């Protein structure tokens, strides 16, 4: 177990390193950052001075090392757009994204798990057909389009919910549903298939042969084993949330990290973008490691393998 964790941490560091290379390469491919400051009143001396100050007079590998040295100490410098340290801006947006992710996760769990269970235990019935249809619908709908259609129905036509921005709980409903829709469909499918597999397993058959009632078999044996599914799915879910947040927050003008990163890209604000990409990568890696450890703790069968 300890070896496993150490191995994963080493791998995580490697992934982070590659991410820094990608980010740095993109920031330099974007052109000389001095052009962002230069004006018609700038002099050649100022240009040279900036070059020395930002380390641009040195070759690329040296520049990368200097940048990496700072990045390791989490020093990404000032955001070009906000003209303030990136770590002053990012925490102010974190809460909005976190709240949205919680709402979306709640939606995915509340919709996906019960429907998945119903679908599996009534396999082949109309319930199952409906459940599978919902899953297929959910996985085929583009998030940005779903968001706009929800705005059309609930904000424009019915005038029940606000179209965009952040405020009381009503503002959370549409973005959370938009972000949670795809994960809900995925969860439904996963719960259904894993429950079906469990229902077909030897120990469930044994329990049935022993004379345990149908309801009890499902509640005590099958569901318990299907319970690890949302956890395994957690890693994929997080990736879906990060990608989804970029789109959902753009559609709803949500003041979170997703929209902040889109802004950073369009403003060629590379200090901000570097910090965000590395932050997302780190969050993803740490969450996945925790999920894998939890998984081993919860499901003893993994340990035997």
């Amino acid at each position, binding site marked *: 177990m300890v070896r496993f964790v150490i191995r994963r941490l080493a791998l995580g560091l490697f992934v982070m390193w590659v991410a820094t290379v*990608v980010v740095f390469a993109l920031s330099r491919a*974007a052109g000389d950052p001095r052009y962002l400051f230069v004006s018609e009143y700038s002099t050649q001396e100022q240009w040279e001075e900036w070059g020395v100050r930002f380390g641009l007079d040195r070759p690329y590998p040296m520049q990368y090392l200097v940048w990496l040295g700072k990045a390791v100490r989490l020093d990404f410098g000032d955001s070009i757009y906000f003209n303030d340290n990136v770590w002053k801006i990012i925490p102010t947006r974190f809460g909005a994204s976190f709240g949205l992710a919680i709402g979306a996760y709640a939606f995915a769990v509340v919709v996906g798990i019960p429907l998945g269970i119903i679908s599996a235990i009534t396999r082949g019935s109309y319930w199952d057909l409906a459940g599978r249809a919902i899953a297929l619908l959910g996985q085929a709908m*583009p998030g*940005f*389009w779903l968001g706009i*259609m929800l705005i059309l129905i609930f904000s424009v036509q019915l005038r029940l919910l606000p179209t965009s921005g952040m405020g009381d709980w009503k503002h959370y409903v549409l973005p959370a549903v938009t972000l949670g829709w795809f994960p809900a469909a995925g969860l439904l499918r996963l719960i259904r298939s894993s429950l079906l597999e469990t229902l077909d397993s030897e120990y469930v058959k044994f329990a049935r042969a022993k004379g345990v009632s149908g309801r009890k078999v499902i509640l005590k044996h099958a569901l318990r084993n299907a319970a690890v599914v949302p956890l395994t799915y957690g890693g994929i879910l997080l990736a879906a949330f990060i990608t989804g947040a970029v789109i959902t927050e753009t559609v709803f003008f949500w003041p979170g990290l997703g929209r902040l990163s889109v802004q950073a*890209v369009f403003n060629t604000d590379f200090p901000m973008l570097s910090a965000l*990409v590395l932050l997302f*990568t780190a969050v993803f890696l740490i969450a996945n490691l925790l999920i894998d450890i939890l998984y081993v703790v919860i499901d003893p069968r993994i340990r035997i393998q």
Partner: protein
Amino acid sequence: MSAQAGTRVDSVGSARTPNVGGRTFYVLRRWPVLPALILTTFGLAAIFAPLMAPHDPYQGTLLDERIPPVWHEAGTTEFLLGTDPLGRDILSRIIYGARVSLSLAGAVIAIGTVLGTTVGLLAGWYGGIVDDLLMRLAELNFAIPFVLVALAAAVVFGPSFGLMLVMLSIYSWAGFARQIRAQVLLLKSMDYVALAQVAGASTPRLLLRHILPGLISTVVVLMTLNVGLLILSEAGLSFLGVGIPGPTPAWGSMVAEGRNYIAENYWIALLPGLAIFLIVYAMNFCGDWLRDRWDPRLRQI
């Protein structure tokens, strides 16, 4: 073992399914009739776009701006699905959009499949350090937020069809490699492979003649299941304005154009999104269907 379990569950299921609904429903449920119809329609639209489109997808006059679709009172039969804010015919743009979307997804899936299958094959067969290296490379793809890198690349190099092709190909191979590797590990332990090895078959021969044919069903299933995801990714990037650059009709950017008119002219955003939804739905449906028939082992994805 799990493959066996999968087949067993499915055979029980198909024996039970005819109990619901009549004979028509039975056929509809057994064969993906509707999805196949949708795919054929879009496929034909993509190939014969110039013949099928009633108007020029690039040209419109502002006099014709935002005409509603034909089912509205103010709609005309000249523009069946209405027009966009520049007076361009939405139906024609959706037809040409199919061409863009499908050709991109097709090219990416071809590259992703070849790359992913090769990597999976090598990683699974050789194991050890080759496996470790290649699989770590694949893991990178999941950890680094693709959408941000694609966004940044588009801003740096300027959005283009070629850039989308490269970015989506880089993104798509890893999923293939993982699944193929698992399948290779399974096949490698089969007796017939060991026998071929004993009989003196060379490594290339083993890989190409004995392992590769066993991968074909998995590859086809994965391809079908991935096309939908790729179309969604492309549409998402086009929606953000960094996918296929205008004025080329791409469904994602068409939805983005319609977004500001949603209160009065809902069809501008609704219809292209519906096209994305229909084609991805049909693709996923066919993928599921193929998987249940050919490769129940992949049921978890």
